[in-house]
């Protein structure tokens, strides 16, 4: 197996995740796209850990834990937005626009 095939798969997943973050209007779907990005980074970490020792696997585990925390807080924020505005359209949240 080549190192590159894993890195390229991760690059493609990362780009698809970025596309989703830009295009999606629903807050929950934006969070799902962020999960795609985090997972592509995990593939990279594990692939490099075959070269540089088990630290990469440890950090992949850390990323999984941080992603769980991020989804918890993110969904709470989306829920709060829904409660205040009756919609989760993230494009409508433009109060900070000058």
């Amino acid at each position, binding site marked *: 197996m080549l190192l590159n*095939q*894993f890195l390229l798969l991760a690059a493609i997943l990362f780009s698809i995740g*970025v596309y989703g973050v830009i295009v999606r209007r629903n807050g929950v779907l934006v*969070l*799902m796209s962020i999960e795609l990005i985090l997972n592509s980074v995990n593939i990279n970490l594990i692939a490099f850990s*075959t070269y540089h020792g088990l630290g990469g696997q440890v950090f992949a585990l850390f990323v999984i834990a941080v992603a769980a925390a991020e989804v918890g807080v993110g969904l*709470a924020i989306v*829920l709060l937005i829904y409660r205040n505005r009756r919609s*989760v359209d993230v494009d409508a949240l433009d109060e900070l626009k000058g």
Partner: protein
Amino acid sequence: MIGTLALLAQQATEHSFDTPVNVVFYIVAAFMVFAAIRVVTTDNIVHAALWLIMVLAGVGLNFLLLQAEFVAITQVLVYLGAIVVLFLFGIMLTRAPLGRADDLDNNMKPIAAVVGVLLTAVIAFAVIRTFGDDRLTFEAYSGPMAEAGNNRTTALANEIFGPQLIPFEVLSVLLTAALIGAIVLARRD
């Protein structure tokens, strides 16, 4: 320019189908890319969550191919078991349309597609230029594994509770803080 690209593509694909594991990898990878595209393009929010399960399972299979069993099992437990269920609850609690909906995307699709393709091209160019045809030898696993009696999970535990102990403890504090934060944000009063 085109000659360079052809050379790079040839270098990158030279050893692509030399083992059965590679064939498995390419099948899983093609399915993962398809499922990921469905996550960001489907009109149905619940279907997006289900396609996300497929991508996450594919990532877990990739971890298995890279001989990281413990991380693969954690991926299945945490992502497929917990996070996707959390997403489904989020979908239900925000009363998203459970069927097809045509207002899930904004009008930035062409720009976003260009951004995505450019990003893939730049990363792919850099990665292929840097790593060419480096083979996976798993040499870094052999030292810690011999130390742990040829058990990969023991080797990983030695790494977490040895050199990485402080980040691990900080992470548990972070998880507690995030949990309390989520409760404070989501409670009604």
